[in-house]
């Protein structure tokens, strides 16, 4: 009885200690560890917020098997930068549906943050943001990717995004005719 009780108390203390820590440790698919402010993680990621609230954060590094180290580094970097930037009214939004909610323009530092990334790094980051439920980061990265599509011909888009054209010649001709108004003379 005594032993059991002691064990329970120890568990309790450990949990309290964990709750008191102000960072969480995240582990990438290739085993690298990253520290991030608990407050920022909970605020910016619905998935991490859920894990923190549910107590499923591992002190030795919470496994995020879907996210590579480069992408996770960028996620953490974003969270830290975000924690340091002045919170603006635009960020205090409770919109859930990213398909229908009006989109917020990225702030200057966010623009710079995604501009320096290579295409591959950007694509990995947007997937990580999607996986972690980071609405704001998803906004910023999707905005950047949509900028890469604007005003381009299908050929140019294929080149940028490394897309294999799987339409037949006839299908392409039909699309061209149907959408003549949408095509640039390329």
């Amino acid at each position, binding site marked *: 009885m005594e032993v059991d009780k002691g064990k329970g108390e120890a568990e309790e203390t450990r949990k309290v200690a964990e709750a008191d820590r102000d960072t969480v440790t995240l582990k990438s698919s290739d085993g690298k560890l990253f520290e991030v402010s608990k407050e920022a993680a909970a605020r910016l990621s619905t998935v991490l917020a859920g894990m923190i609230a549910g107590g499923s954060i591992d002190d030795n590094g919470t496994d995020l098997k879907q996210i590579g180290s480069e992408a996770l580094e960028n996620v953490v970097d974003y969270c830290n930068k975000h924690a340091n930037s002045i919170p603006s009214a635009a960020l205090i939004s409770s919109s859930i549906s*990213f*398909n*229908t909610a009006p*989109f917020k323009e990225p702030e200057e530092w966010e623009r710079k943050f995604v501009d320096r990334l290579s295409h*591959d790094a950007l*694509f*990995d980051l*947007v*997937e990580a943001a*999607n996986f972690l439920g980071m609405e704001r980061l*998803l906004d910023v990265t*999707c*905005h950047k*990717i*949509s900028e890469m*599509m*604007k*005003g*381009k*011909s*299908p050929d140019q*888009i*294929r080149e940028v*995004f*490394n*897309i*294999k*054209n*799987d*339409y037949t010649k006839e*299908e*392409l001709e*039909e*699309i*061209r*005719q*149907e*959408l003549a*108004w*949408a*095509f640039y003379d390329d």
Partner: protein
Amino acid sequence: MPDMDGWLSWRRRGQSQEDDNDSTPLPDDVLAAVFARLTDAADVLRCAATCKRWCRVVAKDAAVHARVLPPELARRRAFFGVFSQLGLPDPVPGVADAAYHRKRKSPYPISLSDGGRHDALLEHSRPVAARNGWVVLELVHASPAESLDLCVFNPMTGEIFMLPSLSGEARPRCYACALLTGDDVDEPLPTSTTVFFRVLIVYNRYRFTAFRAFSSDTSRWGTEVSRSARPKIDNVRLGRLGQSVVLGGVAYWPLRRSALAVQLDGPEPCEVTMPPWGISADQPQSLRLLGVTSGDRRQQQKLCFVDVGFDVDDRLHRAGLPCRTIFLLTSVLSTIDGQGTNMLKWVMPHGRLYIPEMMVCSSDDFNLRWFCEKSGVILFTVGQESNSPGLYALDIATHKVQKVVDGTGCGSWRNVVGYEMDAAGYLASVACY
């Protein structure tokens, strides 16, 4: 909530295995989020033109992307199609045949499917109204009907709304139906409104003609309004009222000498006074149609009445050949300024519009079917006793006639409604190769 699992998504599921061979790492949901941030419809469509997977992602969210389609463009490029029940005698449940036409060589069928949940019902249905990408279908019951069941269906996206049954005392026998959609409303709808429509039915009680409207705001039928100020419309005529045209929130049907007009955008349907006469009364309903005049802005459009006349070539008549050439006459409902009040009057401003190179034996072989309000196209069928049977589309602005469906059976089609896509349907269709 709309059931978004449409035939397009069904088709997507069917194809998704073999053609996901592009090497872009972005998964579908991320792509969808990116496309939703494009503010120019041309960008969205050029993305759809890059590869099949991107195309499917665009088609899936057609309703979202349609918001960035310029309204003039959506209007100019409205396509039309035909939903009809192929010559099947009522009330035998029939397979509704649907086809729509654009610059393709031949029309192709659109399946009446919402992805499985109501397919059996939809297959046994009869189109009763259509506007702005939506079709009102009456679900046909195998046994003698106990109730009237209507649904509002977007065949391009598969969205479907079942209206509450009207059964028992509330079930109308014969009725006419009109549909008002969000595209008809000038003031912007609240952003929380995902879909907006009103369905009006006109039917007869023992002593009077009645109106009743369903509203998507309340998801229920409103109260019955009696047409008390005017005589009851006779049953046969009511059953044959056919297409209603909607202009400025008012639904119009052709009556014998004028039009029946019912205000539909208020809380309850309410009849609008029309000039008591002015259109020729002695034509069968198959040779008359209400429509709207062309106008860039909706405010400039006017109600018009189209009827058919024939010239007979005696030489051909004697030889027993198709001998009647066909022309259309249009009367426009115009405002006459006089004595301080705005009087309405039917005015015939145009001459005859001849349909070129077409001859029929008798007026029975010609049938005006539908007035496509957005594109200004009249659909008509020509029966087998003619030099060229089929379904035709006449563009009123250009006077161009195009054959949509070739075939001798077209003349006997029942329940033909014209179908014009809304912007979402248009995007879904072009993004669906």
